[in-house]
Protein backbone atom coordinates (compact mmCIF):
# COMPACT_ATOMS: atom_id res chain seq x y z
CA UNK A 1 0.00 0.00 0.00
CA UNK A 2 2.06 2.89 -1.18
CA UNK A 3 -0.09 5.14 -3.32
CA UNK A 4 0.80 8.79 -2.81
CA UNK A 5 -2.03 11.29 -2.62
CA UNK A 6 -1.79 15.07 -2.50
CA UNK A 7 -5.09 16.58 -1.39
CA UNK A 8 -5.45 20.32 -1.89
CA UNK A 9 -1.81 20.80 -0.90
CA UNK A 10 -0.63 24.39 -0.44
CA UNK A 11 2.78 25.39 0.82
CA UNK A 12 3.70 28.93 1.80
CA UNK A 13 7.12 29.96 2.99
CA UNK A 14 7.58 32.97 5.26
CA UNK A 15 9.62 35.70 3.59
CA UNK A 16 12.56 37.18 5.46
CA UNK A 17 11.06 40.68 5.35
CA UNK A 18 7.58 39.63 6.38
CA UNK A 19 4.75 38.27 4.29
CA UNK A 20 4.67 34.86 2.67
CA UNK A 21 5.69 33.28 -0.57
CA UNK A 22 3.18 30.93 -2.15
CA UNK A 23 5.36 28.09 -3.46
CA UNK A 24 2.65 25.51 -4.10
CA UNK A 25 -0.99 26.33 -4.67
CA UNK A 26 -3.74 23.76 -4.08
CA UNK A 27 -2.27 20.73 -5.75
CA UNK A 28 -4.38 17.60 -6.14
CA UNK A 29 -2.51 14.59 -7.41
CA UNK A 30 -2.97 10.88 -6.96
CA UNK A 31 -0.13 8.52 -7.76
CA UNK A 32 -1.34 4.94 -7.77
CA UNK A 33 0.55 2.12 -6.23
CA UNK A 34 3.29 1.02 -8.64
CA UNK A 35 2.68 3.96 -10.92
CA UNK A 36 5.62 5.90 -12.35
CA UNK A 37 4.87 9.63 -12.45
CA UNK A 38 7.30 12.18 -13.86
CA UNK A 39 7.04 15.84 -12.90
CA UNK A 40 8.36 18.47 -15.29
CA UNK A 41 8.31 22.21 -14.81
CA UNK A 42 10.50 25.28 -14.76
CA UNK A 43 12.97 25.98 -11.99
CA UNK A 44 11.28 27.18 -8.81
CA UNK A 45 7.83 25.75 -9.57
CA UNK A 46 7.89 23.67 -6.40
CA UNK A 47 8.89 20.22 -7.64
CA UNK A 48 11.40 19.63 -4.86
CA UNK A 49 9.00 21.01 -2.28
CA UNK A 50 6.30 18.61 -3.46
CA UNK A 51 8.69 15.68 -3.26
CA UNK A 52 9.92 16.69 0.21
CA UNK A 53 6.32 16.63 1.43
CA UNK A 54 5.89 13.07 0.13
CA UNK A 55 9.17 12.17 1.84
CA UNK A 56 8.00 13.63 5.16
CA UNK A 57 10.74 16.25 5.23
CA UNK A 58 8.38 19.18 4.76
CA UNK A 59 4.70 19.63 5.49
CA UNK A 60 1.82 21.37 3.72
CA UNK A 61 0.54 24.68 5.02
CA UNK A 62 -2.91 23.53 3.91
CA UNK A 63 -4.17 20.20 2.65
CA UNK A 64 -2.86 16.70 3.25
CA UNK A 65 -0.32 14.28 1.88
CA UNK A 66 -1.18 10.61 2.27
CA UNK A 67 0.96 7.58 1.56
CA UNK A 68 -0.78 4.23 1.68
CA UNK A 69 -3.85 5.97 3.07
CA UNK A 70 -1.99 7.41 6.07
CA UNK A 71 -1.05 11.03 6.52
CA UNK A 72 2.70 11.56 6.26
CA UNK A 73 4.20 12.57 9.58
CA UNK A 74 7.90 12.07 8.87
CA UNK A 75 10.44 10.28 6.75
CA UNK A 76 10.79 6.52 6.57
CA UNK A 77 12.95 3.96 4.77
CA UNK A 78 9.98 2.64 2.79
CA UNK A 79 10.11 5.95 0.85
CA UNK A 80 13.62 6.28 -0.53
CA UNK A 81 14.74 9.69 -1.72
CA UNK A 82 17.35 10.57 -4.33
CA UNK A 83 18.27 14.17 -3.60
CA UNK A 84 19.01 16.77 -6.24
CA UNK A 85 22.27 17.59 -4.36
CA UNK A 86 23.17 13.85 -3.95
CA UNK A 87 23.50 14.34 -0.16
CA UNK A 88 26.17 11.66 0.28
CA UNK A 89 27.93 11.57 3.63
CA UNK A 90 31.42 12.91 2.84
CA UNK A 91 33.02 10.94 5.69
CA UNK A 92 31.70 7.60 4.51
CA UNK A 93 33.04 5.53 1.65
CA UNK A 94 30.93 4.51 -1.35
CA UNK A 95 30.26 1.17 0.32
CA UNK A 96 29.28 2.78 3.63
CA UNK A 97 27.07 5.35 1.92
CA UNK A 98 25.19 2.69 -0.02
CA UNK A 99 24.92 0.52 3.08
CA UNK A 100 23.89 3.30 5.48
CA UNK A 101 20.14 2.57 5.40
CA UNK A 102 20.76 -1.17 5.75
CA UNK A 103 23.00 -0.48 8.74
CA UNK A 104 20.26 1.66 10.33
CA UNK A 105 17.83 -1.25 9.85
CA UNK A 106 20.43 -3.62 11.32
CA UNK A 107 20.43 -5.86 8.27
CA UNK A 108 22.76 -8.85 8.85
CA UNK A 109 26.21 -8.08 7.50
CA UNK A 110 26.39 -10.88 4.92
CA UNK A 111 23.03 -9.90 3.48
CA UNK A 112 23.92 -6.20 3.42
CA UNK A 113 27.28 -6.85 1.78
CA UNK A 114 25.64 -8.91 -0.94
CA UNK A 115 23.04 -6.21 -1.63
CA UNK A 116 25.69 -3.48 -1.70
CA UNK A 117 27.87 -5.50 -4.07
CA UNK A 118 24.90 -6.03 -6.40
CA UNK A 119 24.18 -2.31 -6.69
CA UNK A 120 27.83 -1.31 -6.92
CA UNK A 121 28.03 -3.61 -9.91
CA UNK A 122 24.73 -2.44 -11.39
CA UNK A 123 25.68 1.24 -11.10
CA UNK A 124 29.12 0.72 -12.61
CA UNK A 125 30.92 1.68 -9.41
CA UNK A 126 33.14 -1.39 -9.16
CA UNK A 127 36.63 -0.54 -7.97
CA UNK A 128 35.43 2.57 -6.16
CA UNK A 129 33.82 0.88 -3.15
CA UNK A 130 36.37 2.34 -0.75
CA UNK A 131 36.56 5.83 -2.27
CA UNK A 132 35.21 8.86 -0.47
CA UNK A 133 32.62 10.97 -2.33
CA UNK A 134 35.06 13.82 -3.01
CA UNK A 135 37.20 11.36 -4.95
CA UNK A 136 34.36 10.64 -7.41
CA UNK A 137 33.07 12.60 -10.38
CA UNK A 138 29.66 14.26 -10.11
CA UNK A 139 28.07 11.54 -12.21
CA UNK A 140 29.56 8.80 -10.04
CA UNK A 141 28.34 10.53 -6.88
CA UNK A 142 24.88 10.62 -8.37
CA UNK A 143 25.04 6.90 -9.10
CA UNK A 144 25.99 6.26 -5.47
CA UNK A 145 22.95 8.28 -4.43
CA UNK A 146 20.74 6.18 -6.73
CA UNK A 147 22.26 2.91 -5.51
CA UNK A 148 21.67 4.01 -1.93
CA UNK A 149 17.96 4.44 -2.70
CA UNK A 150 17.53 1.19 -4.69
CA UNK A 151 19.31 -0.95 -2.13
CA UNK A 152 16.56 -0.26 0.40
CA UNK A 153 13.97 -1.97 -1.84
CA UNK A 154 11.55 0.83 -0.97
CA UNK A 155 7.85 0.72 -1.74
CA UNK A 156 8.12 4.26 -3.11
CA UNK A 157 11.03 5.96 -4.83
CA UNK A 158 11.19 9.75 -4.79
CA UNK A 159 13.79 10.95 -7.26
CA UNK A 160 14.74 14.60 -7.67
CA UNK A 161 16.54 15.04 -10.99
CA UNK A 162 18.47 11.85 -10.37
CA UNK A 163 20.18 11.88 -13.76
CA UNK A 164 20.93 15.60 -13.84
CA UNK A 165 24.69 15.27 -13.39
CA UNK A 166 25.21 12.38 -15.78
CA UNK A 167 26.76 12.58 -19.22
CA UNK A 168 24.48 11.78 -22.16
CA UNK A 169 25.69 8.20 -22.57
CA UNK A 170 25.52 7.22 -18.91
CA UNK A 171 22.17 8.92 -18.75
CA UNK A 172 20.73 6.70 -21.48
CA UNK A 173 22.13 3.59 -19.83
CA UNK A 174 20.60 4.63 -16.50
CA UNK A 175 17.27 5.46 -18.10
CA UNK A 176 17.08 2.05 -19.73
CA UNK A 177 18.19 0.44 -16.49
CA UNK A 178 15.51 2.31 -14.57
CA UNK A 179 12.86 1.15 -17.04
CA UNK A 180 14.07 -2.44 -16.67
CA UNK A 181 14.00 -2.19 -12.88
CA UNK A 182 10.63 -0.53 -12.94
CA UNK A 183 9.16 -3.28 -15.11
CA UNK A 184 10.74 -6.14 -13.22
CA UNK A 185 9.91 -4.81 -9.80
CA UNK A 186 7.37 -2.04 -10.17
CA UNK A 187 7.06 0.46 -7.36
CA UNK A 188 5.51 3.83 -6.85
CA UNK A 189 7.84 6.44 -8.33
CA UNK A 190 7.89 10.23 -8.34
CA UNK A 191 10.54 11.25 -10.81
CA UNK A 192 11.40 14.94 -11.13
CA UNK A 193 13.22 16.08 -14.22
CA UNK A 194 13.88 19.06 -16.45
CA UNK A 195 14.24 16.76 -19.44
CA UNK A 196 10.90 16.34 -21.20
CA UNK A 197 12.30 13.42 -23.26
CA UNK A 198 13.22 11.54 -20.17
CA UNK A 199 9.81 12.12 -18.61
CA UNK A 200 7.95 10.77 -21.64
CA UNK A 201 10.24 7.79 -22.03
CA UNK A 202 10.13 6.72 -18.39
CA UNK A 203 6.76 7.66 -16.99
CA UNK A 204 3.27 6.26 -16.98
CA UNK A 205 2.03 9.81 -16.55
CA UNK A 206 3.72 13.17 -16.92
CA UNK A 207 2.66 16.01 -14.64
CA UNK A 208 3.41 19.44 -16.12
CA UNK A 209 3.82 22.21 -13.55
CA UNK A 210 3.99 25.99 -13.85
CA UNK A 211 5.35 28.52 -11.39
CA UNK A 212 4.29 31.64 -9.52
CA UNK A 213 2.46 30.03 -7.92
CA UNK A 214 3.38 26.36 -8.33
CA UNK A 215 0.42 24.59 -9.90
CA UNK A 216 -0.31 21.58 -12.05
CA UNK A 217 -1.00 22.73 -15.61
CA UNK A 218 -1.80 19.37 -17.04
CA UNK A 219 -1.41 15.67 -16.37
CA UNK A 220 -0.78 13.51 -19.44
CA UNK A 221 -1.15 9.73 -19.64
CA UNK A 222 1.69 8.24 -21.65
CA UNK A 223 0.68 4.59 -21.30
CA UNK A 224 -1.52 4.45 -24.43
CA UNK A 225 1.37 5.81 -26.52
CA UNK A 226 3.80 3.31 -25.11
CA UNK A 227 1.49 0.35 -25.54
CA UNK A 228 0.35 1.28 -29.06
CA UNK A 229 3.87 2.14 -30.16
CA UNK A 230 5.47 -0.97 -28.67
CA UNK A 231 8.11 1.19 -26.94
CA UNK A 232 8.95 -1.56 -24.47
CA UNK A 233 10.72 -3.58 -27.11
CA UNK A 234 12.59 -0.65 -28.69
CA UNK A 235 15.88 0.99 -27.76
CA UNK A 236 15.54 4.45 -26.31
CA UNK A 237 16.92 6.37 -29.29
CA UNK A 238 14.39 4.72 -31.63
CA UNK A 239 11.55 5.48 -29.25
CA UNK A 240 12.59 9.12 -29.26
CA UNK A 241 12.42 9.18 -33.06
CA UNK A 242 8.86 7.93 -33.37
CA UNK A 243 6.28 10.53 -34.47
CA UNK A 244 4.13 9.79 -31.43
CA UNK A 245 7.07 10.62 -29.16
CA UNK A 246 8.13 13.82 -30.91
CA UNK A 247 4.53 14.95 -31.06
CA UNK A 248 4.14 14.42 -27.33
CA UNK A 249 7.39 16.24 -26.68
CA UNK A 250 6.32 19.34 -28.58
CA UNK A 251 2.94 19.26 -26.89
CA UNK A 252 4.58 19.40 -23.46
CA UNK A 253 7.04 22.06 -24.60
CA UNK A 254 4.15 24.19 -25.79
CA UNK A 255 2.41 23.81 -22.44
CA UNK A 256 5.49 24.94 -20.58
CA UNK A 257 6.15 27.81 -22.95
CA UNK A 258 2.59 29.11 -23.01
CA UNK A 259 2.56 29.17 -19.26
CA UNK A 260 5.84 31.07 -19.04
CA UNK A 261 4.69 33.69 -21.55
CA UNK A 262 1.46 34.17 -19.74
CA UNK A 263 3.25 34.43 -16.41
CA UNK A 264 6.89 35.27 -16.87
CA UNK A 265 9.33 34.39 -14.15
CA UNK A 266 8.95 37.09 -11.54
CA UNK A 267 12.16 38.98 -10.81
CA UNK A 268 11.23 38.86 -7.16
CA UNK A 269 8.56 36.63 -5.67
CA UNK A 270 6.36 39.67 -4.95
CA UNK A 271 3.38 38.86 -7.20
CA UNK A 272 2.78 35.61 -5.41
CA UNK A 273 2.86 36.98 -1.92
CA UNK A 274 -0.03 37.23 0.41
CA UNK A 275 0.03 39.29 3.58
CA UNK A 276 1.16 37.51 6.69
CA UNK A 277 -1.62 36.24 8.81
Amino acid at each position, binding site marked *: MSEIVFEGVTRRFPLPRGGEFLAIDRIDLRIEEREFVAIVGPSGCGKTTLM*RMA*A*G*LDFPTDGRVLVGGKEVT*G*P*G*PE*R*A*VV*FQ*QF*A*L*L*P*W*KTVRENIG*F*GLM*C*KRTPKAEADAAIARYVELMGLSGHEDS*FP*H*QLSGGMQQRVAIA*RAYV*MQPAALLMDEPFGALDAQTRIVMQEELVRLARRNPRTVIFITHAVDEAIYLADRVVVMGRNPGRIIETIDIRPLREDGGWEAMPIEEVMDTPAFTHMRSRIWKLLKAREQERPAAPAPIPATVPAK
Partner: protein
Amino acid sequence: MPTEARSSGWGFAVPRRAVVGLATVGGALLLWWLATSGLRLLNPLRLPSPQEVWAAFSQISTGQGYGGATLWQHALHSLWLVAKGFAVAVATGIPLGLLMGWSRRAEALINPIFLLLRPIPALAWIPLAIVWFGLGDTGKVFVIWLTAFVPSVINAFTGVRGVDPVLIAAARTQGASTAQVIRHVVVPGAMPMIFTGLRLSLQASWTTLVAAELVGAFFGLGRVLNVAGQDIFPGMILVGMAAVAACGAATTWLLGRAERRVVNWRPAV
Protein backbone atom coordinates in the same frame (compact mmCIF):
# COMPACT_ATOMS: atom_id res chain seq x y z
CA MET B 1 35.97 26.79 6.60
CA PRO B 2 39.56 27.02 7.75
CA THR B 3 41.87 24.79 5.77
CA GLU B 4 45.61 24.62 5.78
CA ALA B 5 48.11 23.28 3.36
CA ARG B 6 49.00 19.67 3.97
CA SER B 7 52.51 18.42 3.51
CA SER B 8 51.43 16.19 0.60
CA GLY B 9 52.05 17.41 -2.90
CA TRP B 10 55.14 19.45 -2.13
CA GLY B 11 57.21 17.11 -4.29
CA PHE B 12 60.74 18.39 -4.72
CA ALA B 13 60.08 21.54 -2.74
CA VAL B 14 60.69 19.75 0.57
CA PRO B 15 64.51 19.39 0.53
CA ARG B 16 64.90 22.87 -0.85
CA ARG B 17 62.71 24.45 1.82
CA ALA B 18 64.55 22.47 4.50
CA VAL B 19 67.87 23.76 3.21
CA VAL B 20 66.62 27.34 3.19
CA GLY B 21 65.17 26.92 6.69
CA LEU B 22 68.41 25.51 8.08
CA ALA B 23 70.40 28.31 6.45
CA THR B 24 68.13 30.93 8.04
CA VAL B 25 68.39 29.36 11.49
CA GLY B 26 72.17 29.02 11.11
CA GLY B 27 72.44 32.66 10.04
CA ALA B 28 70.40 33.82 13.01
CA LEU B 29 72.59 31.80 15.41
CA LEU B 30 75.70 33.34 13.87
CA LEU B 31 74.28 36.84 14.23
CA TRP B 32 73.34 36.07 17.82
CA TRP B 33 76.87 34.83 18.57
CA LEU B 34 78.41 37.88 16.88
CA ALA B 35 76.18 40.33 18.73
CA THR B 36 76.83 38.77 22.14
CA SER B 37 80.29 37.21 22.49
CA GLY B 38 81.80 37.75 19.03
CA LEU B 39 81.63 41.55 18.83
CA ARG B 40 80.19 42.20 22.32
CA LEU B 41 77.58 44.60 21.06
CA LEU B 42 75.03 43.71 23.73
CA ASN B 43 75.18 43.61 27.51
CA PRO B 44 75.24 39.88 28.44
CA LEU B 45 72.74 40.58 31.24
CA ARG B 46 70.23 41.61 28.58
CA LEU B 47 70.90 38.92 26.00
CA PRO B 48 73.15 36.00 26.92
CA SER B 49 75.51 34.42 24.44
CA PRO B 50 74.90 30.95 22.94
CA GLN B 51 77.57 29.50 25.22
CA GLU B 52 75.85 30.84 28.32
CA VAL B 53 72.54 29.36 27.20
CA TRP B 54 74.25 26.05 26.58
CA ALA B 55 75.81 26.21 30.06
CA ALA B 56 72.42 26.93 31.60
CA PHE B 57 70.95 24.03 29.64
CA SER B 58 73.68 21.70 30.92
CA GLN B 59 73.15 22.87 34.46
CA ILE B 60 69.38 22.29 34.47
CA SER B 61 69.60 19.01 32.58
CA THR B 62 71.90 17.26 35.02
CA GLY B 63 72.35 16.61 38.72
CA GLN B 64 70.31 18.87 40.98
CA GLY B 65 68.87 20.74 38.02
CA TYR B 66 67.47 24.20 38.68
CA GLY B 67 64.44 25.51 40.53
CA GLY B 68 64.13 22.24 42.42
CA ALA B 69 64.20 19.74 39.56
CA THR B 70 65.81 18.89 36.23
CA LEU B 71 64.50 20.28 32.95
CA TRP B 72 62.86 16.96 32.09
CA GLN B 73 61.02 16.83 35.39
CA HIS B 74 59.80 20.42 34.99
CA ALA B 75 58.76 19.81 31.38
CA LEU B 76 57.00 16.54 32.16
CA HIS B 77 55.18 18.20 35.02
CA SER B 78 53.95 21.03 32.79
CA LEU B 79 53.01 18.62 29.98
CA TRP B 80 51.08 16.48 32.40
CA LEU B 81 49.11 19.48 33.74
CA VAL B 82 48.28 20.68 30.22
CA ALA B 83 47.27 17.16 29.22
CA LYS B 84 44.97 16.85 32.23
CA GLY B 85 43.35 20.27 31.89
CA PHE B 86 43.00 19.87 28.14
CA ALA B 87 41.51 16.38 28.44
CA VAL B 88 38.94 17.56 30.99
CA ALA B 89 38.07 20.56 28.78
CA VAL B 90 37.63 18.36 25.71
CA ALA B 91 35.58 15.81 27.61
CA THR B 92 33.23 18.49 28.95
CA GLY B 93 33.35 21.21 26.26
CA ILE B 94 32.74 19.14 23.14
CA PRO B 95 29.67 17.32 24.44
CA LEU B 96 28.26 20.61 25.71
CA GLY B 97 28.89 22.33 22.37
CA LEU B 98 27.33 19.42 20.50
CA LEU B 99 24.30 19.53 22.77
CA MET B 100 23.88 23.29 22.32
CA GLY B 101 24.28 22.93 18.55
CA TRP B 102 21.75 20.14 18.29
CA SER B 103 19.09 21.40 20.70
CA ARG B 104 17.83 24.97 20.53
CA ARG B 105 16.36 24.47 23.98
CA ALA B 106 19.72 23.51 25.47
CA GLU B 107 21.25 26.50 23.76
CA ALA B 108 18.64 28.87 25.18
CA LEU B 109 19.24 27.40 28.63
CA ILE B 110 23.03 27.34 28.69
CA ASN B 111 24.02 30.23 26.47
CA PRO B 112 23.26 33.02 29.01
CA ILE B 113 25.67 31.53 31.57
CA PHE B 114 28.18 31.09 28.85
CA LEU B 115 27.87 34.67 27.63
CA LEU B 116 28.34 35.84 31.21
CA LEU B 117 31.54 33.86 31.84
CA ARG B 118 33.06 34.11 28.38
CA PRO B 119 34.38 37.72 28.53
CA ILE B 120 36.47 36.92 31.63
CA PRO B 121 39.98 36.09 30.41
CA ALA B 122 41.17 32.75 31.76
CA LEU B 123 44.22 34.44 33.29
CA ALA B 124 41.93 36.55 35.49
CA TRP B 125 40.81 33.34 37.18
CA ILE B 126 44.31 32.54 38.45
CA PRO B 127 44.04 34.45 41.78
CA LEU B 128 40.70 32.84 42.52
CA ALA B 129 42.09 29.43 41.60
CA ILE B 130 44.94 29.98 44.06
CA VAL B 131 42.50 31.01 46.78
CA TRP B 132 40.36 27.94 46.12
CA PHE B 133 42.99 25.32 45.40
CA GLY B 134 46.34 26.72 46.58
CA LEU B 135 49.56 26.63 44.56
CA GLY B 136 49.35 22.90 43.77
CA ASP B 137 48.27 21.15 40.61
CA THR B 138 44.50 21.29 41.06
CA GLY B 139 44.27 25.04 40.61
CA LYS B 140 46.33 24.86 37.44
CA VAL B 141 44.24 22.09 35.94
CA PHE B 142 41.23 24.20 36.82
CA VAL B 143 42.42 27.32 34.95
CA ILE B 144 43.58 25.26 31.97
CA TRP B 145 40.18 23.67 31.88
CA LEU B 146 38.56 27.12 31.89
CA THR B 147 40.88 28.26 29.10
CA ALA B 148 40.41 25.29 26.82
CA PHE B 149 36.73 24.86 27.56
CA VAL B 150 35.45 27.98 25.79
CA PRO B 151 36.92 27.33 22.31
CA SER B 152 35.91 23.67 22.57
CA VAL B 153 32.29 24.57 23.24
CA ILE B 154 32.08 27.33 20.64
CA ASN B 155 33.63 25.31 17.86
CA ALA B 156 31.63 22.17 18.55
CA PHE B 157 28.51 24.34 18.57
CA THR B 158 29.43 26.12 15.31
CA GLY B 159 30.40 22.79 13.75
CA VAL B 160 27.00 21.27 14.45
CA ARG B 161 25.18 24.33 13.14
CA GLY B 162 27.25 24.12 9.96
CA VAL B 163 26.19 20.56 9.12
CA ASP B 164 24.25 20.55 5.85
CA PRO B 165 20.55 19.97 6.72
CA VAL B 166 20.14 17.93 3.53
CA LEU B 167 22.58 15.37 4.96
CA ILE B 168 20.46 15.07 8.09
CA ALA B 169 17.33 14.80 5.95
CA ALA B 170 18.97 12.12 3.81
CA ALA B 171 19.93 10.09 6.86
CA ARG B 172 16.40 10.35 8.22
CA THR B 173 14.88 9.12 4.96
CA GLN B 174 17.13 6.09 5.26
CA GLY B 175 15.63 5.27 8.61
CA ALA B 176 18.31 6.67 10.90
CA SER B 177 17.23 7.22 14.51
CA THR B 178 18.16 10.46 16.27
CA ALA B 179 21.10 8.71 17.92
CA GLN B 180 22.26 7.42 14.54
CA VAL B 181 21.90 10.85 12.96
CA ILE B 182 24.05 12.36 15.71
CA ARG B 183 26.66 9.63 15.59
CA HIS B 184 26.97 9.27 11.82
CA VAL B 185 26.07 12.71 10.51
CA VAL B 186 26.29 15.48 13.09
CA VAL B 187 29.47 14.54 14.95
CA PRO B 188 31.56 13.70 11.87
CA GLY B 189 30.22 16.82 10.15
CA ALA B 190 31.28 18.98 13.08
CA MET B 191 34.67 17.30 13.44
CA PRO B 192 36.81 19.64 11.27
CA MET B 193 35.47 22.62 13.20
CA ILE B 194 36.00 20.82 16.51
CA PHE B 195 39.65 20.28 15.67
CA THR B 196 40.04 23.96 14.82
CA GLY B 197 38.73 24.67 18.31
CA LEU B 198 41.08 22.15 19.85
CA ARG B 199 44.09 23.81 18.24
CA LEU B 200 43.05 27.15 19.71
CA SER B 201 42.38 25.49 23.08
CA LEU B 202 45.77 23.86 23.15
CA GLN B 203 47.69 27.05 22.43
CA ALA B 204 45.72 28.94 25.02
CA SER B 205 46.29 26.13 27.53
CA TRP B 206 50.05 26.60 27.35
CA THR B 207 49.74 30.35 27.78
CA THR B 208 47.57 29.88 30.83
CA LEU B 209 49.77 27.21 32.35
CA VAL B 210 52.93 29.29 32.04
CA ALA B 211 51.14 32.28 33.55
CA ALA B 212 49.78 30.21 36.42
CA GLU B 213 53.20 28.71 37.12
CA LEU B 214 54.79 32.15 37.00
CA VAL B 215 52.39 33.29 39.68
CA GLY B 216 53.34 30.42 41.91
CA ALA B 217 54.29 26.79 41.52
CA PHE B 218 56.55 24.12 43.01
CA PHE B 219 57.53 22.60 39.66
CA GLY B 220 57.07 23.32 35.99
CA LEU B 221 58.55 25.36 33.16
CA GLY B 222 56.82 28.51 34.40
CA ARG B 223 58.61 28.01 37.73
CA VAL B 224 61.96 27.76 35.90
CA LEU B 225 61.21 31.07 34.19
CA ASN B 226 60.11 32.65 37.45
CA VAL B 227 63.18 31.56 39.44
CA ALA B 228 65.53 32.47 36.59
CA GLY B 229 63.95 35.91 36.45
CA GLN B 230 64.48 36.42 40.18
CA ASP B 231 68.08 35.18 39.90
CA ILE B 232 68.64 37.49 36.91
CA PHE B 233 69.86 34.48 34.96
CA PRO B 234 69.16 35.31 31.29
CA GLY B 235 70.65 32.06 29.95
CA MET B 236 68.20 30.04 32.03
CA ILE B 237 65.31 32.28 31.01
CA LEU B 238 66.02 31.46 27.37
CA VAL B 239 66.25 27.75 28.17
CA GLY B 240 62.83 27.96 29.85
CA MET B 241 61.33 29.81 26.90
CA ALA B 242 62.73 27.31 24.43
CA ALA B 243 61.41 24.42 26.52
CA VAL B 244 57.91 25.93 26.57
CA ALA B 245 58.04 26.37 22.80
CA ALA B 246 59.22 22.80 22.28
CA CYS B 247 56.47 21.38 24.51
CA GLY B 248 53.83 23.49 22.77
CA ALA B 249 55.05 22.41 19.34
CA ALA B 250 55.13 18.75 20.38
CA THR B 251 51.54 18.79 21.63
CA THR B 252 50.34 20.68 18.55
CA TRP B 253 52.06 18.10 16.36
CA LEU B 254 50.33 15.28 18.22
CA LEU B 255 46.98 17.00 17.81
CA GLY B 256 47.60 17.41 14.07
CA ARG B 257 48.31 13.68 13.79
CA ALA B 258 45.09 12.90 15.62
CA GLU B 259 43.19 15.23 13.29
CA ARG B 260 44.55 13.57 10.18
CA ARG B 261 43.51 10.21 11.53
CA VAL B 262 39.99 11.27 12.51
CA VAL B 263 39.22 13.62 9.61
CA ASN B 264 40.66 11.29 6.98
CA TRP B 265 37.91 11.87 4.46
CA ARG B 266 38.62 15.45 3.47
CA PRO B 267 40.30 16.38 0.23
CA ALA B 268 43.86 17.49 0.91
CA VAL B 269 43.79 21.14 -0.09
